[in-house]
């Protein structure tokens, strides 16, 4: 029994410290997350960073000699064009998700409170099915002898089947579909916070409904729009599944370039360098926007 005592005492003092010292409290609270992040995010990132300075051996093995060759290879009009094209795809996805998502988010935010959670549930419902399966469903719908063409032909609305699948239009449809919820949710958060009183005040002061929207609602929802844009734009830029499956793999996006280095060319160091560059660019973009907009809450949806 006597041997137990010092241990008991130490435990007691640890509990004591935890109770009294707020700094230790904080560390204890974040440590599970911090350890997780360290092992599964920071360490792999360091590995990628180190790898990006190595080079490829003849058989696709990694040769551990420090050099900048991979980054030199990236400074190339070809990869710049691909980056620009990816930016374009990301931007188009962003614009269309705002155009479709804004009215939807507005509708949900303005509907009675008890219905809102049901609507939000509907927005999230597709996530219960695997993303790839949903993309295949779109392929079924859009193909030449698919659902859309059959219906339109039967109704006599068109004479020849529309050739949508394996075109840039199909890619855009797939991207907008996939990323719409990521735009709607932050927009909803912003719109929901706007007090009815603010709009009523504007109306009382003589503003017409469209002016209320332009001068009050729209500016107040900008943080949500920016948060949504970041959530849509960044993953859309790196997306390669949709362009491959719905676009017929005829274009190369940044995501394809990186994946090909790992799965086709077996050039891991070059792939690592390309992903480092993409990471730095997105980080710069995010920092710029968050600084400029000065928000945070909406991103956490």
């Amino acid at each position: 029994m006597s041997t137990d005592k010092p241990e008991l005492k130490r435990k007691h003092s640890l509990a004591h410290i935890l109770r009294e010292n707020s700094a230790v409290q904080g560390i204890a609270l974040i440590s599970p997350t911090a350890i997780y992040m360290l092992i599964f995010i920071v360490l792999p990132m360091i590995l990628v960073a180190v790898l990006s300075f190595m080079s490829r051996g003849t058989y696709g093995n990694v040769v551990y000699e420090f050099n900048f060759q991979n980054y030199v290879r990236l400074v190339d009009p070809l990869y710049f064009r691909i980056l620009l094209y990816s930016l374009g795809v990301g931007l188009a996805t962003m614009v269309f998700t705002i155009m479709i998502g804004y009215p939807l988010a507005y509708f949900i935010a303005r509907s009675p409170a008890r219905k809102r959670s049901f609507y939000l549930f509907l927005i999230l419902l597709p996530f219960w099915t695997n993303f790839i399966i949903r993309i295949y469903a779109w392929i079924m719908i859009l193909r030449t002898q698919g659902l859309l063409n059959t219906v339109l032909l039967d109704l006599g609305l068109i004479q020849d089947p529309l050739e949508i699948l394996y075109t840039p239009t199909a890619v855009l449809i797939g991207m907008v579909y996939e990323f719409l919820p990521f735009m709607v949710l932050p927009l909803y958060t912003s719109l929901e916070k706007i007090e009815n009183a603010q709009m009523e005040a504007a109306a009382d002061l003589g503003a017409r409904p469209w002016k209320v929207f332009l001068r009050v609602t729209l500016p107040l929802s900008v943080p949500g729009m920016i948060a949504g844009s970041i959530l849509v734009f960044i993953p859309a830029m790196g997306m390669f599944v949709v362009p491959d499956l719905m676009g017929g793999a005829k274009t190369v996006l940044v995501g394809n370039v990186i994946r090909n280095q790992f799965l086709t060319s077996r050039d891991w160091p070059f792939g690592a360098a390309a992903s480092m560059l993409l990471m730095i660019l997105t980080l710069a973009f995010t920092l710029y926007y968050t600084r400029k907009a000065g928000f945070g809450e909406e991103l956490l949806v």
Partner: protein
Amino acid sequence: MNKYKLFALGLTLSILLAACGGGGPASDNVLNLYAWSEYVPQQLLDNFTEQTGIEVNYDTYSSNEELMAKLQAGASGYDVVIPSDYTVTIMINQGLLEPLDKTQISNFSNIFDTLTGLSYDPQNDYTVPWQWGTSCLVVDTGKVTRPITKWADLWDPEFEGKVVLLDDEREVLGMVLSVLGYDKNSTDPQQLEEAKQKLLELMPNVKLFDSDSPKTALLAGEVWLGQTWNGEAALAHMENPDIQYIIPEEGCTVWYDNLAIPKDAPHYNAAMQFINFVLDPQESILITYEFPYSNPNRAALELLQTEDPQAYDAYMNFPATNPSADDMSRLKMIQDVGDATALWDRIWTEVKGGE
């Protein structure tokens, strides 16, 4: 305090028990198979378990490169893998394969003599044939009325937006190189540049690139002709007899997939048992029924002939499963292009992302 102590004791004991009970004897009764998706019939695995008591875990990959990536990272825990020809060369060079104990493969004599001792493993020290096949020209004769005999026909303007190609730089650029009369494994920058220009001319005709299931677009009527794996063509042919498979004049790719054991496989004996089991004619037929690539097992095909003459005739009379000797003379393996891989990749990226 006592409650916690009891709990901790219980937990420790159960972990210890699990370690002894679960880990000990079970470890000899497991086989970790790492193979292409849609390639190993479940029935075959079940039969193996029934006969030997060894449970099989079947993990899948969709390219040789994925397989190499996993094995290069070290200690994968896999016992049997199915690499293709040029991959075997690389893996032997990197010391990633364990030599086979040939005394345990009594069924090896079932394999066609012509399919043993191929260039990538001349003595079959590391590999045993699993299936083989080609990637050639497929045509829907219900849609294309004029006869198609060569790759060069794909460039015909009448096929605008009607061609499917494999999403594979080695297959597609290799095909274009052979149309130009060059070696499909060329490392010459001049020839590769010419191939790039030639491929760019073909792009208006290309509806899509698809390696996973090129037959889908063909069966849906989305495309009329193109490049596909023989097994895919055989399956498409069963659904739509108009779909024909042609070994074109310029020749096309032949590939050989092999059973092999990775270095330091945890269950070497189970792996050897499995390899010998697969070569049994009765089991080998199962593969041909479910995934109609070409079967290297002579005894299996003889068995099929007596047991199911109709299936045998279908197999023998379709060029996708059984190319003629004349066709065979035009087939060529893909070889690793070593340091030129970066150049190949760049050209592929330029074609797809250039303009």
